């Protein structure tokens, strides 16, 4: 079935005209009709628009045009603006918002001929690690529908794992791509800060947010990054530097590469099956010729605390724009202040309120130096830890998460425990470096995916693809499919 293919396999079939983009798009829509009632990855999808884009791609193919993404269906997290389509950030506060323009990543994918479709569920405003914070109900894990898919990009991960799309885009502020990719068994990439334009991404924490992909294998991750990366004058944090040919890094031997294992990541509370899978992956990488050495990232233990100051502070400022004046839902009040407070009180869910309150507090007069400024200083030390480590190693290897997917409701009443589930993914955003999660095994019973995280030097995506691809070629995990019945 076409919806089960990787991007590269579908592109090969389209190139020989063995199939059509319309058939591929229809196969994804059929799969959504079959299985999405069980997992709720999609908030909505505009089938007529998707099929019209597929027909346009088929015309380009008939005219002789070829490209790695031409005619490939790619679905979007509900945080990315797509012209004429809703954008809700899985929140009630955006009401019936319809995007008046395309995000830069959407423009770039359209230019490459991809079919942009669907709105994927997420934690409200990307705040959460389980997709339980969606105002429209949770997404469930395709491997076990009593469990969460991870978050915040849970819909993006579940849709790829369930073959509802060939690839999806998400956003990652503290692990929101890598953690759900690990828990759903797909490849998730958070690129280097500044590599991919955020124009048209609804902002959560502007010094941490990056857009990245969910794909079925490493080659597809390289293909999507090649299409969406690059300087954009509309995002002032976008770094002006040429985009390399990422596909060229695939297939190169990893002999002689040095990989670091941070001793601080071997924490108590890690599931023994996760630890065993990661240990086995490290052995596999050694067998492939990499040299593995222990390294130290001494400020690791402070990353979660720094993150929940920096991210909430930035969120409290970014979310000030949702005030019921220019767009979204409005709850009236006698004066502007009452209108703002009523609208925001009714429109935001509990986790968003919690973070706005925390962020407002740490920035408030008398507390700024003690919390926000101190956190920014510790962030410097965390970033320096990585830069020091990268003088000795080419990449860092860790588990993506301490455990496999947890049960729905298991952590939703304890925000601090939920925050600590991001312990391995948060430092990467604070340091601004790239991170990739790929499947490295399964727990025994129930059978749940386990993720291996690779962290790279700033703009070191090519090295991550090289290592991940070598590992993937030597292991069977990425070919496994969840047991959904349709």
């Amino acid at each position, binding site marked *: 079935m076409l919806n089960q293919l990787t991007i590269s396999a579908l592109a090969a079939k389209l190139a020989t005209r063995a199939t059509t983009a319309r058939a591929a798009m229809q196969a994804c829509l059929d799969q959504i009709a079959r299985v999405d009632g069980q997992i709720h990855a999609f908030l909505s999808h505009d089938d007529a628009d998707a099929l019209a884009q597929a027909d346009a791609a088929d015309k380009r193919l008939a005219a002789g045009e070829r490209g790695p993404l031409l005619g490939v269906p790619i679905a979007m997290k509900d945080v990315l603006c797509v012209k004429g389509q809703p954008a809700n950030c899985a929140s009630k506060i955006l009401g019936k918002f319809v995007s008046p323009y395309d995000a830069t990543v959407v423009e770039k994918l359209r230019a490459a001929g991809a079919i942009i479709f669907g709105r994927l569920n997420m934690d409200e405003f990307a705040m959460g690690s389980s997709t339980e914070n969606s105002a429209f109900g949770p997404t469930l894990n395709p491997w076990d529908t009593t469990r969460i898919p991870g978050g915040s990009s849970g819909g993006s991960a579940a849709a790829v794992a369930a073959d509802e799309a060939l690839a999806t885009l998400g956003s990652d502020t503290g692990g929101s791509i890598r953690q759900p990719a690990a828990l759903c068994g797909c490849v998730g990439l958070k690129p280097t800060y500044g590599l991919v334009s955020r124009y048209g991404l609804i902002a959560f924490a502007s010094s941490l947010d990056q857009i990245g992909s969910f794909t079925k294998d490493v080659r597809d991750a390289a293909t999507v990054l090649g299409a969406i990366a690059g300087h954009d004058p509309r995002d002032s944090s976008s770094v002006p530097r040429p985009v390399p040919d990422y596909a060229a890094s695939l297939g190169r031997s990893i002999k002689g590469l040095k990989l670091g294992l941070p001793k601080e990541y071997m924490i108590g509370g890690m599931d023994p099956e996760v630890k065993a899978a990661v240990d086995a992956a490290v052995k596999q990488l050694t067998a492939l010729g990499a040299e593995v050495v222990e390294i130290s990232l001494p400020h690791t233990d402070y990353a979660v605390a720094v993150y929940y100051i920096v991210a909430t502070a930035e969120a409290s400022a970014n979310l000030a724009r949702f005030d019921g004046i220019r767009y979204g839902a409005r709850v009236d009040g006698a*004066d502007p202040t009452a*209108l703002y407070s009523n609208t925001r009180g009714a429109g*935001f869910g509990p986790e968003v*309120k919690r973070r706005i*309150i925390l962020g407002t507090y740490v920035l408030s007069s008398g507390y700024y130096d003690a919390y926000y400024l101190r956190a920014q*200083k510790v962030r410097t*030390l965390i970033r320096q830890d990585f830069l020091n480590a990268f003088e000795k190693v080419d990449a860092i290897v860790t588990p993506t998460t301490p455990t496999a997917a947890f049960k729905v409701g298991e952590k939703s009443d304890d*925000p601090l425990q939920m925050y600590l589930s991001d312990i391995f993914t948060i430092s990467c955003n604070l340091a*601004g470096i790239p991170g990739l999660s790929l499947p490295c095994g399964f727990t025994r019973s129930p059978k749940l995916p386990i993720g291996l995280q690779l962290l790279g030097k700033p703009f070191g995506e090519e090295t991550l693809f090289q290592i991940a691809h070598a590992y993937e070629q030597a292991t069977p995990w990425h070919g496994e499919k969840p047991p959904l019945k349709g």
Partner: protein
Amino acid sequence: MSAPDFDIQYVAHLARLKLTADEEAKLGSQLTNILGYIAKLKEVDVANVEPTAHAFPLVNVMRADETRPSLPHDEAMRNAPAKAGGLFVVPKIVE
């Protein structure tokens, strides 16, 4: 970074966020717990450490000062919850 002593009603007012009494009570205790965890940052010696606002700061990002196409007026207004005569309708601000 002393013991968390925040006034939830005051902070909610700063954030323009109307909370119910239940929300105030629940958020208050959860935030006390989170602030207790965050207090571990006191252990770190940050003397002579510069703060990091962005991992890869770019400074003075400028563009040419020239007219370019922008969103048409009606497109910019299309999501307004209340509008009249091409303007946003808001509660009375000046008496």
